[in-house]
């Protein structure tokens, strides 16, 4: 097996926040199955905070653990705070990732950011509509 930390194994075996959100405020998808890893993040936003986060992930053990960890790290955070989560900070929280796993499977932060951007652009579109 790849040499995964205890934390990675924990999140792989017991991933937090797996699922989808009906009528989410934002959706972000990153990666593609050609490379072997793909993640979809769903978010609910309230008062500029991530009230709920769910994800679905196709990929290796690291990809699943990363998704779970990102959802946990971001839960309840303000959007600004969540945007500051980086692949490196996720890997650190996970007690490290194998070198060759860093780039392909560490897409969680990007997927979350995409979901937030999706939310923000929808907000902006709505704001424009309202105007």
């Amino acid at each position, binding site marked *: *097996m*790849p040499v995964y930390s205890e934390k990675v194994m924990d999140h*792989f*075996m017991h*991933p937090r926040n*797996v699922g*989808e959100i009906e009528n989410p405020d934002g959706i972000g*998808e990153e990666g593609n*199955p*050609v*490379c*072997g*890893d*793909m*993640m*979809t993040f769903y978010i609910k936003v309230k008062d500029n905070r991530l009230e709920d986060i769910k994800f*679905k*992930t*196709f*990929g*290796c*053990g690291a*990809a*699943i653990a990363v998704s779970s960890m990102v959802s946990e790290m971001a839960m309840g955070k303000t959007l600004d705070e969540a945007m500051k989560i980086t692949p490196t900070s996720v890997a650190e929280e996970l007690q490290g990732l194998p070198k*060759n796993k860093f780039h*392909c*499977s560490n897409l969680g932060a990007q997927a979350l950011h995409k979901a937030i951007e999706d939310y923000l652009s929808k907000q902006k579109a709505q704001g424009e509509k309202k105007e």
Partner: protein
Amino acid sequence: MRKVYLDNAATTPLLPEVREAMLPFLGEVFGNPSSLHDWGDTARQAVDAAREQVAVLIGANAEEVIFTGSGTESNNFAIKGLALAQQSKGKHVVVSAIEHFSALHSARTLEKWGFELTEVPVDKYGMVNPDDVRESIRKDTVLISVMHANGEVGTIEPIKEIARIAKENKIVFHTDAIATAGTIPVDVKELGVDALSLAGNQFYGPKGVGALWVRRGVRIMPLLDGGVQEGGRRAGTENVPAIVGLGKAAELAKASMSARIKQLTPLRDRLLKELPASIEHVMVTGHPQNRLPGHASFCVEFIEGESMLMFLNMEGIAVSSGSACTSRALKASHVLIAMGISHELAQGSLLCTFGLDNTDEDVDYMVKVLPPIVDRLRQMSPLYSKFIKASKGGK
């Protein structure tokens, strides 16, 4: 916990008889076969006896068998050595698209050295069409190499037909028989090949040893220069214990081949039938009939191989996958891709290979353990939820 090793294509355990045969050579009998004294003589006689055993396995003359350090070395030696020895005649080489990397990458190294390379395609079963080989032949073709069977999808190739085409065109033909020698009947005369690779750890022999058989009269450049061991064709102090083990494994394989095939085939057939029956959206890869006796391979849709392997490992089951994440090169299996399988589907590649230690209970266990794992991963998979939505939408 039950422990089920279903990864015999990766490597097989040593048979106790093989280990017994090797042990003296890790002890009292330690001489260098090149040495001119009793210690050397005993070692050399053991190496020669093993050479005879390997020759018998493949229907060859002992002096045509060259011991190497691995299947990979045999393939490198064959492809580079046979091409380089003939480069004055031409610089075009033909291989199949599904060769093992040790053959394929050797051929690509030849490209860097000024050779031209044609990679012959395969059909959806991973089968090479001999006509495609015929069409790939040019005036300057000096070497054709097509594997006897593919270790990832189990498909057995029509080597006899391809060898005949090579012969008609007076082109040297090598086959990588690493997945077949010791497993199914391999006879160099019947196959009609000029060179053939095999490896010990594929049929209950040791790691660290392989062999290349080269028909007398066919020229080959050494890959390892140095002393005149192995008739000057492969230098280096012989790995005596491993060579002895390979010889013993060859002898045992020859003696019990049909019994082994009879043991493995029903296990394979059960799994090929029962896994797709117990899990939706599972396809068998490789040829439905012309496949290695212990070889069952699949693609499980919507999920990725590594996470499947991890959960199976937690249940005590060892298998392989050709997914990108499980390859250390992080690319989906070139074999599956060459068969026209999509990258997405290739990620769910699952390879179960039976060995002499496996039983019907192992099949039962696998068929029991895998469905909930697949289910669990699919519940997490965005691809699966898209599929479900799309099929619901379609209804």
